[in-house]
């Protein structure tokens, strides 16, 4: 009979709850995984092409000679190529023999040898917010609300909590017009959000003191002499960070980012990203190239470890698909190609180029339905994404969407080939692999899946 608990039972339940509570307060990730730090020094750029992309036009094309309009009710795939301009109705051969792309892949076709493309994966959602939350955190959202911290935050946390100061960065986690979550990681791993380049300058530049450096030094010395850091951890930290803040504002970091500057590095970046002079106040951050140029500069200048950026935000083609979707995708893909090329052109102090030390993940929060509704496509949980750069097996295709309805298909996570006993790839498999790739093999992010090691070189 289900009667009431005895007092003894209530107390035991109370003890159990108390135990759970205590473990919560001990901050589980740092306690359980204190020794699971990265063994490889790597940077990350998370590129979000927002709105939900039509993968037929880019990463996951279908042969228009097979998937014809006449067969659309049989295949449940309607490419709609006849609605596109006549010079956009063919697939594009990449620089890897077995890899073809859709007609709007743009310059990215020349970088397939550096890319691992994942097809037929799922975000398990039809909503922008939920899909984005899933991709950014690797966790099923709570309704439309993200759960847990962003992968960028977790990666930043892993590096910033290492004793080796060389692993630390000034702005470890930078976010350019995109979301970032921190629910359980150190504050320094919180994403620093930029809406414009001026926001970044506010962070890295200081307001001039109303007196000269001699007086500044006198103040610093006074605070040093009159505040005893041994009295408390807070004071110790406060004085240490005070010194660091002063150092940061003295570094003249603006010149590393100011796209209107005249240093050789900035001129090379402007050239690589096809930016004109004085675009900061005109096109500025509305241009995907400008955003990615800032992201790239943050990495190569050593300021940031992880950069998340919304490359483009105009892919939600419920209407005017034929006019807008491909054009906007290609803007994003061209900018991504510029990013890859730029990073590949900058030598890294540890050998190779910055591309050899930076992993790029490019995704959209969902795909679009395989059947058209007039001149539009609705949302679809099936999507594709690609990775490039450090630790990534270039020239690789993981999985495939099905030939009926372009659905998700199960994949062997270690080989990337279709397998009836495998898993449907989801963002968390990719995130787990990113951690795996830097030597973090414990499930520090509580993703509860195996890594998609097929993408790793």
């Amino acid at each position, binding site marked *: 009979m289900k009667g009431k608990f005895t007092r003894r039972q209530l107390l035991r339940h109370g003890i159990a*709850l108390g135990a759970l509570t205590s473990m919560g307060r001990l901050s589980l990730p740092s306690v359980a995984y204190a020794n699971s730090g990265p063994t490889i020094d790597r940077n990350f750029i998370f590129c979000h092409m927002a709105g939900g992309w039509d993968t037929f036009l880019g990463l996951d094309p279908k042969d228009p000679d097979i998937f014809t309009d006449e067969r659309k009710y049989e295949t449940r795939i309607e490419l709609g190529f006849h609605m596109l301009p006549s010079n956009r109705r063919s697939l594009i051969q990449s620089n890897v023999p077995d890899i073809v792309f859709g007609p709007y892949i743009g310059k990215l076709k020349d970088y397939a040898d550096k890319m691992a493309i994942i097809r037929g994966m799922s975000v398990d959602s039809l909503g922008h917010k939920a899909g984005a939350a899933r991709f950014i955190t690797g966790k099923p959202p*709570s*309704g439309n*609300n993200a759960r847990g911290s962003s992968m960028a935050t977790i990666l930043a946390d892993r590096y910033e909590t290492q004793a080796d100061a060389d692993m630390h960065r000034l702005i470890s986690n930078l976010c350019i017009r995109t979301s970032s979550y921190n629910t359980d990681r150190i504050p320094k791993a919180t994403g620093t959000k930029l809406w414009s380049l001026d926001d970044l300058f506010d962070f890295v530049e200081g307001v001039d003191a109303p007196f000269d450096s001699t007086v500044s030094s006198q103040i610093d010395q006074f605070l040093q002499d009159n505040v005893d850091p041994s009295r408390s951890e807070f004071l110790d930290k406060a004085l240490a960070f005070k010194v660091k803040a002063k150092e940061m504002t003295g570094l003249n970091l603006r010149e590393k980012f100011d796209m209107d500057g005249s240093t050789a590095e900035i001129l090379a970046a402007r050239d690589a990203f096809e930016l004109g002079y004085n675009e900061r106040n005109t096109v500025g951050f509305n241009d995907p190239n400008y955003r990615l140029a800032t992201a790239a500069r943050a990495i190569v200048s050593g300021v940031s470890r992880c950069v998340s950026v919304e490359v483009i935000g105009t892919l939600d083609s419920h209407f005017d698909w034929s006019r807008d979707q491909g054009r906007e995708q290609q803007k994003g893909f061209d900018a991504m190609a510029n990013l890859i090329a730029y990073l590949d052109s900058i030598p890294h102090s540890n050998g190779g180029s910055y591309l050899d030390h930076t992993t790029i993940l490019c995704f959209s929060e969902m795909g679009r339905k395989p059947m058209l509704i007039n001149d539009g496509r609705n949302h679809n949980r099936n999507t594709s994404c690609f990775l490039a750069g450090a630790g990534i097996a270039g020239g690789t295709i993981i999985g495939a969407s099905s030939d009926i309805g372009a659905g998700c298909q199960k994949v062997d996570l270690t080989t990337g080939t279709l397998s009836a006993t495998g898993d449907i790839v989801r963002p968390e498999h990719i995130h787990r692999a990113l951690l795996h790739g830097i030597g973090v093999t414990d499930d520090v992010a509580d993703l509860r899946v195996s890594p998609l090691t097929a993408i790793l070189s």
Partner: protein
Amino acid sequence: MFALCMASLVAHADDELMSGTRYLRSVSLDVLGRLPTIEEYEQIGDDEGIPEELLDEWLDSEAFHQQVLYYHNLLLLNDLEFVKFQNFVHYMDTSNDIFYIKRRNFRKGTSNLIHNPPCGDFEATLDSQGRPIATVKPDGSLDEGYRWVTPYWDPSTQVKVCAFEAQETEVSSSGRDCKASEGPADPECDCGPNLNWCTPKFGYGVYHEIVNDFDEQINQHIRKILTEERPYTELFTGDWLLLNGPLTHMYNYLVFHPHGTDMEHPPFDRNLTPDLSYQQNETWIEIPSIEANSGIFGLPGFLLRFHTDRRRAERVLSEFMCIELTPPPAGLPESTEDELFEADLRQLNGCASCHGLLDPVASFWGRWSEVGGSRIPLAEYPSFSDECNQIARNGYDRNGYAKCWQEGYLVEPYWGEKVGWHKAHAQLYDAEQNYPIEGPRRFFQQNIANGKIPACVVQKASKQLLGRDLNNRDTEWKQDITRQFIQNNYNYVELIRSIVTSEQYRRRQ
């Protein structure tokens, strides 16, 4: 571990009492969010406490109320952003200063075009029945011109509205409800008198004002508890709620057949809706809530911030019962083949440690829509549907299947014997079947009566004010404060007073 504990118990110089002025400064920052004035400093000696009159004044001030609201924002995270509380087709757009609803296909006429705005900049002509007379443009699309309308959101002005939208039909001659999602497809339908059932633009203006008012509704509830010295427990079990003009307008006109966020069945009896206009945004009227609502926990500001029932439960458990749910440190064990298809997480090894508590508590919100703020009526949606059960067992019936799924009934084959059950009830044991029907009130009442919630309220408030977790040396103090809080009929102001005048608080750097 013993050594660690002993090291922590060694007295530290920073555990001395603060000086009078530093103490005053700390209390002022915590209670008012500002520094003391020089005049206030002059009222306190070096070793004295804060004069009672001064503290009374502080605890009765708007600045203190703001601090309490700030603190509760940290608990409730009541700051909504993306809420589609209205059907998308009832959002208006503007172009050339003319309001219209986009993409009403009947305007295409013989063309395939709809213009923005779809009507020309000329005053409409009406027929004998008051309907606009549309002309046919050269491209075959229709154009009816505009009419001047006084919008509900600004009665001091008039705006141009395309004449089809400016109609005031409630139900069209073909029987379509113009407020509902089917409305805009019918040329006779419109935005109603004063554009009542349309929103000027998605993401702007009225939309933002109403979404902000969801947050403010909770703030006002807390404010009322403070200013009227109501028991703090009314945050959890209050049988009332507050409505202002915009929220009243929303419930009256904007929540029928929504797109994405179900708000149709409010947490109060519609017959008791106050008579407020949209402009009365600072007038908050108290009305009784339905039994299934409990304090603020059936209000949109809470439900739309925490979209799923489990998330709602988890927030209540962590912030108001001090129960944190965390996975086992060793991770979850591998699932067996059978477990992969077991939907009841309480049966799963590893999951049960959290879901054993979480799922039953979540079920108290089972009849509040997820990603929504609507109460799912029992009469219309019983816990078990014979019809949906049959649909699920008889094979694929596309329309019936979709209808049942949308209404929340389990129909997919993998649910097995649970098909036909409403999802709010499907996973519950017999003794729990009335949890979704009753709502969380009794859960809160029980945990107030047994002291769990009061103790956690004290603990959280203490932590916020002391700036640290409570420790072994605080046990007796915490018990005393909790007893006082309960004996003072859960007076929150007195609780804060107890904490900031305690030695625990003053024993800081």
